C-alpha cells in the first residue's frame, strides 16, 4: 500500500501569477527531494509549461476527445526535476462545460489510481480561481485536496476572487472539504499593497504564508520557458519560492475562513479605493507636473 500524498490546491484569479507560483513551488519541492505532481485545472492547459521548457502537453481531456476509453497515464508527463505534469484541459472558449471537464479529468485519474501508483509526496492542483461553478470546486471537495492556498495580489479583483474562494471553502467545510491554508501574497512591492492585503487577511482571519515580490527574474525565466528555480537558482526570488515551498511542506493545520459578505466586501474595497484616490492626489500635488495634452 502506497502512502497518501499530501494534496494541495492553489487557487487564484486568472493572470494573477498562480501558475508561475505553483510551478515554482513544485520545482522547489522537487529540488528538495520530494516526488511531486502538478495538476493544472484550467481549460487553457498551460499550468505546467514552465516545468516543461515552455512546451504544452496533451491534456486528459484531449485524450478523451480522441477516444472513449482513456488511459489516464498517457496524460502524465515528466518535467523539471522529475515532476509529473498533468493538465486537465477543457473545451474551446465558448463551448461545452469547463467545470464538467475538471470533474471528469480528476475522476479519471482517481479511478485509475494514478496518484497511488506514482507513490507521490505531493499533488498540487493549480486551479482557475474564480470558482464559477461546481466543477471548479472539485479539488476542494471531500477526498481530494486537504489544504487550499490562494494566490492574490493587492488588486481588488484578485481579492474578490479570493473572497469567493473562501466562501466556497466555508461551504464545503461542513461536508469534509479542504480547509484554507492561507494567502500567498503575490506581486507585492509597496507598503501600500502590503497594507491592503494584510487588512483583507486580517478581516477574514487568514494567515499570509508568504509575500512574493514582483520580479524581473521571474519574467525572464518565464520567457525562457522555465521556472525561476530552474533558470535562476541562485537568485533572491528563487529563495522566496523555496521558503514558500518549505512552508507548504511543513503546513499541517488549515482553518475554515471567515469570508466577507458581498456588502462587507464592497464597503471594504470602497474604503481602500478612497485611500488610493487620496494617495494619487497627494502624489500628483507633490509632483505638480502639468499634464501633456496631445
Amino acid at each position, binding site marked *: 500500500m502506497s502512502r497518501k500524498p499530501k494534496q494541495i490546491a492553489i487557487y487564484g484569479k486568472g493572470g494573477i501569477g498562480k501558475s508561475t507560483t505553483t510551478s515554482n513551488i513544485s520545482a522547489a519541492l522537487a529540488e528538495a527531494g520530494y516526488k511531486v505532481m502538478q495538476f493544472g485545472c484550467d481549460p487553457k492547459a498551460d499550468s505546467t509549461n514552465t516545468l516543461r521548457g515552455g512546451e504544452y502537453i496533451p491534456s486528459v481531456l484531449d485524450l478523451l476527445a480522441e477516444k472513449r476509453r482513456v488511459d489516464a497515464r498517457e496524460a502524465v508527463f515528466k518535467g523539471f526535476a522529475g515532476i509529473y505534469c498533468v493538465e486537465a484541459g477543457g473545451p474551446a472558449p465558448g463551448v461545452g462545460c469547463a467545470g464538467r471537464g475538471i470533474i471528469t479529468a480528476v*475522476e479519471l485519474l482517481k*479511478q485509475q489510481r494514478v496518484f497511488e501508483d506514482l507513490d507521490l509526496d505531493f499533488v498540487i492542483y493549480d486551479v482557475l480561481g474564480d470558482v464559477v461553478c461546481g466543477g471548479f470546486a472539485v479539488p476542494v471537495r*471531500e477526498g481530494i485536496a486537504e489544504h487550499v492556498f490562494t494566490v492574490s495580489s493587492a488588486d481588488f479583483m484578485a481579492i474578490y476572487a479570493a473572497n469567493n474562494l473562501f466562501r466556497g471553502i466555508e461551504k*464545503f467545510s*461542513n461536508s469534509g*472539504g479542504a480547509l484554507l491554508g492561507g494567502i500567498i501574497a503575490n506581486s507585492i512591492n509597496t507598503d501600500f499593497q502590503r497594507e491592503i492585503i494584510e487588512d483583507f487577511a486580517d478581516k477574514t482571519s487568514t494567515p499570509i504564508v508568504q509575500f512574493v515580490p514582483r520580479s524581473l527574474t521571474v519574467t525572464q525565466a518565464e520567457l525562457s520557458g522555465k521556472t525561476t528555480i530552474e533558470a535562476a537558482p541562485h537568485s533572491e526570488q528563487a529563495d522566496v519560492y523555496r521558503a514558500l515551498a518549505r512552508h507548504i511542506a511543513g503546513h499541517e493545520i488549515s482553518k475554515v475562513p471567515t469570508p466577507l459578505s458581498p456588502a462587507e466586501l464592497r464597503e471594504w474595497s470602497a474604503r481602500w479605493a478612497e485611500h488610493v484616490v487620496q494617495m494619487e492626489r497627494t502624489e500628483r500635488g507633490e509632483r505638480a507636473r502639468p499634464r501633456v495634452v496631445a
Partner: protein
Amino acid sequence: MAINLRTPQAETRDQRLGTITQWQGSARQLAQDSTFTYACGRDCGPGGRRLCELSSPYSQASMCAEQIAVTNATIIKDTVVIQHSPIGCASSQSFTSRYSRDLAARRGWKPEDPKSICTNLSEQDMVFGGVDRLAQTIREAYARHHPRVIFVATSCATGIIGDDVDGTARQLEEEIGIPVVALHCEGFKSRHWSSGWDVIEHGILRRLVPNRPTEKRGDLINVIHLGGPDVFSPLLNPIGLKVNLVMGGNSLERLADLSTAAATVTMCFVLSYLATGLEQEYGVPEIRAPLPYGLDATDAWLRDIARLTQREHLVEAVIAAERERIAPELKRLRGLLAGKRGFVAAGAAFAHGLIADLRELGITVDDAFSFHHDPTTDSGDAEQDSLGHLVQSTGDVPNFTVSPDQHFQAHAAILRAKPDFVICRHSGSMAILAGRMGIPVLPIFYSNDGLGYEGLITIGRAILRVLPRRRFYAQIAEHSRFPYQDWWLNETDPYALSAEAAE
C-alpha cells in the same frame, strides 16, 4: 485490473471492460477480437484483430445507467431512493413500482409500493445549485418513511453543474444517523445502461456490506441475479448450501450477509462487479465457471461450486439425479423442437446462455441480437468469457448483432433470420417488435427461467406454448405498420446505415 472502491464513483464499464454497443459479424469473430484486444493484447493466434465498434447514424430509443441504478436501489426493502434530478428522470419509476409489486408477489412478500422521491430540479436549481434542496429532501424522506438507508441518485443535470452530492450525503448522514449512499449514475457517462448495475453494486459494496471476518459461513452461497423467483435453492440445497439471493429485490440483511458467504455466483456476468468486489475486499471467492445454461455447463458449474465449498463428495449424486429426473421430458421436448429456428435477443452473457439452452434443446440458432458486449470481465479471467465458451462448446452464431435495443436494427436482423420464434428480454420493445412482424415470441422478463437443468424444461415448454400461435401473430402483423420506408422494410443488414468504423 482490480475494481476501485475508494472513489465514490464507479468507473464505467466502457472504461473498465471496453464495453461496446454496436457490432456485427459472427460470434466466433467477436469472441476472437475481444480476446485479442483485451486478453493477450498482441498476437494470440491466427485471425486476431482489434475489436472495432461500428457507428450507427441514429438511435431510436434506449435507456440509461440511471434507470438501472435507480430501479435496483428502489426495490431494496426499507430504503428510500432520492433522485436528484429534473422530474423527467423519475418517469421510469412507474415501471419500478409495478416491478416491485410483482417481485413481492412472486417471492411471497407483502406487496408494497417502493419509496422514491425526486428533487424535481428546475432552472433555478441549475443556476444556483441544488444541494440545499437535496438536503431538505433527505430530511423529508427520513421524516416521512423512516427508512434504514437512503440512496441518492445523481442525474445528468447535477453531474454537469457539479453538485456536491457526496458532501451533502455525508453531512446528512451525520444529522439523521442512517447511511446515505450516493449513486453516481449520470446517463452521459457510459454508452450502455448496464453501467447502472456497476453503480448500484459499487454503492452496496462501499456502504452496505460490513466486514464480518469472524462470522464466515461455509454453507452460505451468494447468488447475484437480475430478479425473479428463486430457482437456485432447489439446485443448491441438495449439496447442503443455503442461497443468499441478492439484487433483483432484496433486504438489507441479505446484503449485510454478503461478506460472510463461502462463495458468490452470478447468473449473468453482466452483474459480476459485485462478485469480483466481494472476492477482492472480503476474500469471498467468485465462481468463474461458465454460466449454468445447458447440461454440461450446469454440471461444470455445480462442480466448481462444490470444489470451492468443499462439497465434492455430494455433487456427483446430485448431477446424476437431476440429469435422470429431466431426461424423459428433455427427450420429449427435443423431439418436438428439433429443426426449429430460434432468434435470441438479450443482454450479453444472458443472450449467450439462452443460445446454449436452445441449442441443448435441439433448436437451430444462427442469429442473435445482444444489447451490448463486454469484451472482458472485471476478474479478467478467461473462464468468464461466456461468448468464447458458447462458440467452443456449441459452435458459431453466424449472424451475431450487437445493438443497444434499436428497433430498426432488430427489424432487419429478424427479417434476415426468418426464425420460427423469437425469445427475448426487454419485452416492451423486442417482444412487441417480433409480434408485429408476425413471429411467435417468448418474452422473458425474469431471467432465471432458463437456468440449470430445470431451466431447459421451463424454456422448452414455454417455446412449445408460443409456437402454435402463428395465426394469432399473423393477424397482428396484418394490422401492424412500421414507420420505415420500403427500402428499410426489406433491409436485412442491421448495420446497412453504418458508415464507418468508430474507435
